[in-house]
């Protein structure tokens, strides 16, 4: 059994002594889980290639290091090159690579006095150093080579020590604080929405009768399930794009995308702001909780249609359910539409109040679909996004 160091500060999050014991038990099992070692041949060949390449070859690809087969082939190639070099100009030979067939241990690894004294095992470490804390929440941006950030004053002690740790309540909010909530608005339609008929490859002037056999479905181009279980890091831009793709939006690099991640006592929450720049769409706001998925949908009105603020809206799939209220007209009685993309925009709808019809600008989802039964034509259908 390995020495197990429990973090007392975690107990502040537990609701009972039983829960503390349960978590300790799991942590202890985790500690006792066997370590995995690589094969010694891989370890040695990587070391040899790594240092040799750094000194002589400067070949920067991992495949060369990784497989013994590749390493051997690379060594053979080096041999050929060296042999040619020897015959053409013996003075240019690096004596360290004249025998690449075997991988002699590097002297420095064997005799460096610092190495023999180096013991970094945490169990034996009496580290009282104050390490500056970095309190910048992760934004998912991956820097291949991490740069060291500037140190800040931090008087919090070793988190493993119960004497000086910072109470977790101080650093973690109980609930998320979404930006949209600070200026949340709501509105109610004063009247009944009248959805316009859909004309596909015909016009209203032609006076035809509605198609009787119309099928349609909403199948956004889903890529992965964005639950944060695997794949992209929750809160990263790549993750947000996947989330939006799953909802039917087609985010591109040029689009506006802002992400606000918050660790709370109830888990990780993310607020995503997205605007499709190509179609001058509205700003969509998604509230997401890790493990639960999307909690709410909003759009931001800048005062164009309503008072500036954030208004709750339907999800695209919920809004699409209104398609059942549409009347469809087409060149044939049988039509089959498949909708895969959506944008959030304004659209003029007709509203009826006390027998009077009037136009009103509302946030709407524009669904882009294709007729799949006849000629594969494209069709746009606007449905209200309002709740």
């Amino acid at each position, binding site marked *: 059994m390995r020495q197990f*160091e429990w*973090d007392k*500060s*975690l107990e502040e*999050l537990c609701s009972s002594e039983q829960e503390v014991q349960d*978590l300790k038990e*799991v*942590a202890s*099992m*985790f*500690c006792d*889980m*066997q*370590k*995995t*070692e*690589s*094969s010694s041949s891989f*370890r040695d060949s*990587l*070391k040899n290639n*790594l*240092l040799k390449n*750094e000194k002589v070859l400067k070949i*920067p690809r*991992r*495949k060369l*290091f*990784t497989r013994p087969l590749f390493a051997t082939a690379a060594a053979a190639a080096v041999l050929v090159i060296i042999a040619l070099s020897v015959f053409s100009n013996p003075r240019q030979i690096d004596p360290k690579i004249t025998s690449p067939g075997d991988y002699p241990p590097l002297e*420095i*690894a064997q005799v*460096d006095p*610092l*190495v023999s004294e*180096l013991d*970094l*095992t*945490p169990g034996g470490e009496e580290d*009282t*150093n104050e*390490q*500056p*804390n*970095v309190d*910048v929440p*992760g934004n998912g941006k*991956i820097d*291949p*080579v991490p740069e*060291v*950030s*500037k140190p800040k004053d931090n008087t919090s002690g070793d*988190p493993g020590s119960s004497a000086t740790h910072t109470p977790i309540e101080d*650093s973690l909010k109980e609930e998320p604080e979404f930006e949209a909530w600070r200026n949340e608005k709501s509105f109610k339609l004063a009247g009944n929405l009248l959805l316009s008929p859909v004309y596909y490859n015909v016009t209203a002037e032609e006076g035809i009768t509605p198609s009787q056999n119309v099928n349609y479905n909403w199948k956004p181009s889903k890529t992965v399930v964005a639950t944060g*279980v*695997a*794949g992209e*890091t929750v809160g990263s831009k790549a993750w947000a794009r996947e989330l939006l793709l799953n909802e039917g939006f087609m985010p591109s690099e040029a689009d506006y995308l802002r992400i606000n991640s918050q*660790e709370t006592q109830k888990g*990780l929450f993310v607020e995503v702001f997205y605007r499709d720049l190509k179609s001058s769409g509205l700003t969509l706001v998604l509230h997401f909780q890790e493990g639960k998925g999307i909690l709410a949908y909003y759009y931001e009105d800048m005062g164009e249609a309503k008072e500036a603020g954030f208004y709750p809206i339907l999800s695209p799939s919920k809004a699409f359910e209104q398609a059942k209220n549409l009347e469809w007209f087409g060149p044939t009685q049988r039509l089959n539409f498949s909708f895969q993309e959506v944008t959030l925009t304004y659209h003029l709808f007709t509203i009826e109040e006390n027998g009077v019809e009037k136009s009103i600008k509302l946030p709407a989802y524009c669904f882009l679909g294709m007729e799949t039964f006849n000629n594969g034509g494209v069709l746009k259908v606007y449905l209200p996004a309002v709740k």
Partner: protein
Amino acid sequence: MLIDEREQEIVSRAQNNPDSFAPLYDHYFPKIYNYIYHRVQNTQLAEDLVSETFYKALSNIKKFQWQDRTFACWLYTIARNQVIDQFRRQKPVLLDDSKGEMTEPEVNSPEEKVLMDITRDEILEAIKTLSSDQQDALLLRFHEDLKIKEIALVLNKNEGAVKALLFRGLKSLRKKLEGGDYHEAV
């Protein structure tokens, strides 16, 4: 503190002379391999990512500045980035049956050894169901023995967030294991 100074000296040497990277490699290779292996659970992929990690560390060691983080934190951050990049690049990795070469734990009886094997498999399965950050936090804390403040630097989160990740990770793990064979075995 003395240990840090020694390591600092070794790192400084490696920054001036790549030959001196060898002791750092020798010391950190098993740790980085173990961390990456448990994140991807595939031997070949782990070897690729370990190679990439050390190559990047060696090529960029001159950029490393000894300010607020240890060399270990820096190295684990590179390793973690390799893992994240890998998940971005490709579909879920095929898990391996070989489970690498495991070091033998200290067990007292055959029953205990069986329990240890069952538990490890179950934990590995359960780990896969956790979020990427939770996996990192648990592995770095309880398998790699990093302190919470060090994990915070690797994950680029504050200590409170790391504690929350550990708490929720352990809780989820407990829940997953409760449904498995572990409790029957116990």
